């Protein structure tokens, strides 16, 4: 297993002794999408700026593609592609001009840069808009161009700092597709996000950062498994059939004790998650219990975040979309 990004005891302090990154340790494997999840102000962007050589660490060390970010910055910059949080794109230039300039900055000859620009504009669906000034682009178009700019020199490691913040769902999905495609091509992606769904959908592994430190790390599934099992909620047509329903479901998992506030509801904890829906329906049917609906509630990464930090991620307190039968 080759390590693409390695961070050891990384510290970054700002004026007034504010510690934005506090003895952070992490490793990103080559070819994986690493989701760096945390609320605003957790230190995500500071870490990305250190890894992309835009900031110096106060203490500790970090390397990208085997190169130290402090002592071998130029080699790091050759290996990385960067799309920063604020899509820093000159609004007065056209998409094609920016791509050609980026090509020149990475040592491409004029003709090669022009060819690469055309290729990338097509890849991110901006061929028609390529000769228009970026100032007239929508947020989604800017983000796609920003991604294309980061890809000009076919980077080894790609840093995406909150790439979909503020985007509409369609633009977000389009960007996700592109990130997945890059992953399939073998690019290592370091993705910061404050969206739980984004981390779940894209990341092979997730690191949760809070107050500058890594508080949990693992695959989305393994992290959620630490918090607890999924729960199947059954809404009964008749609250009187509650006892019969409990009896029917016994054996399929752990039936939760009845809650007097919701007499028509039965909850079953089971590791099977969504897969438990057909046997649950069958068992209830066999016991002639009429069901209004069944839904599965799985622990979210926010639950993981809450479990390790004691607070919820901003704007992520709602349940994830549940499966309804």
């Amino acid at each position, binding site marked *: 297993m080759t390590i693409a990004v390695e961070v050891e005891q990384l510290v970054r302090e700002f004026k007034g002794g504010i510690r934005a990154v506090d003895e952070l340790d992490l490793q990103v494997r080559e070819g994986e999408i690493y989701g760096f999840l945390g609320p605003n102000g957790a230190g995500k962007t500071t870490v990305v700026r250190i890894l992309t050589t835009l900031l110096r660490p106060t203490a500790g060390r970090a390397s990208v593609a085997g190169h130290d970010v402090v002592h071998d910055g130029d080699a790091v910059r050759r290996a990385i592609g960067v799309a920063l949080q604020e899509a*820093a794109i000159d609004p007065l230039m056209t998409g094609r001009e920016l791509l050609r300039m980026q090509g020149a900055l990475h040592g491409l000859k*004029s003709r090669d840069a022009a060819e690469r620009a055309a290729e990338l504009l097509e890849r991110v669906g901006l061929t028609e808009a390529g000769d228009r000034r970026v100032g007239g682009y929508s947020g989604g178009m800017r983000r796609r161009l920003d991604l294309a700019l980061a890809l000009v020199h076919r980077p080894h490691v790609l840093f995406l700092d909150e790439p979909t913040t503020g985007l509409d769902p369609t633009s977000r999905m389009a960007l996700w597709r592109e990130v997945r495609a890059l992953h399939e091509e073998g690019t290592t992606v370091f993705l910061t996000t404050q969206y739980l769904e984004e981390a779940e959908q894209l990341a092979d592994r997730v690191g949760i950062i809070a107050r500058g430190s890594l508080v949990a790390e693992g695959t989305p599934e393994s992290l959620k498994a630490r918090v607890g099992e999924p729960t199947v909620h059954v809404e009964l047509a008749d609250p009187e059939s509650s006892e019969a329903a409990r009896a029917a479901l016994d054996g399929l998992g752990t039936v939760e004790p009845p809650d007097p506030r919701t007499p028509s509801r039965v909850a079953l904890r089971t590791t099977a998650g969504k897969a438990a829906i057909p046997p649950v329906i069958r068992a209830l049917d066999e016991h002639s219990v009429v069901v209004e609906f069944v839904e599965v509630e799985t622990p979210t990464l926010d639950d993981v975040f809450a479990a390790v930090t004691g607070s919820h991620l901003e704007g992520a307190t709602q349940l994830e979309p549940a499966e309804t039968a």
Partner: protein
Amino acid sequence: MREARVVAALGRRALSVQFRRAQLLMPTFVLPLVLLAVIASGTSAGQSLRGFPDISSYLGFVVAGTVLQGTILVGLSTGISLASDIEFGFFDRLLTAPVHRTSLVIGRLIGTLVLALMQTTLFLVVAFLFGARYDGGVLGMAGAIVLASITAVGMGGISAAIALRTGSLSLLQSLFPFMFVMLFTAPAFFPQNLLTPLLHDVSVYNPLTYVVEGIRGLLGGDSSLGSPWAGFAAACGLTVATTGLATVALKERLRRL
């Protein structure tokens, strides 16, 4: 070769952005011409003063001041563009590219040089169309254009250094009045020997004095109007010093990251 491509790309970008940013284009191209029209029409009686040099064209005399004003404004706009890049994050994009850090400054100053070449040519041609005569001929004009362009790079170096040191767009924009102080403490529109004693003494220490007189000498084909060599020496000295200053400011900025 690789760095040359980088510098050329950054220079091209600096130039194209300048032409697309009306708030920079207007002061650099239009304002000096407006001032030239006002001065040429309003102060032409000054040439009858005793001690005023014997010239064939008053407009040809004062256009040197317009050219100098243009170099100051082009120089200042260099810093404004750079500060804007820093403030809005574009400079970070450049910093994440594997390029020599000095190329980031040189590339921008190359854009300044080309812009000043175009601007000075325009000023001289417009003045010619309105009656200015250049006894120095085409060679004198070419020399004046080169001298002005080197000076613009020197002024660009100052503003780039300030931009890199502070990263503040508003500070750079507030420097416009100071640039005019530099213009009017040089004999931009009047011969040095007719300045008030105080202004005369100040002008001796202003390197732009030698630049404007050098331009005048080249355009008039008469070294008694000003020494081109002194002008080139002042412009080159200014450029070397301020480019060095900007490079130091960039290194300092990177050290403070």
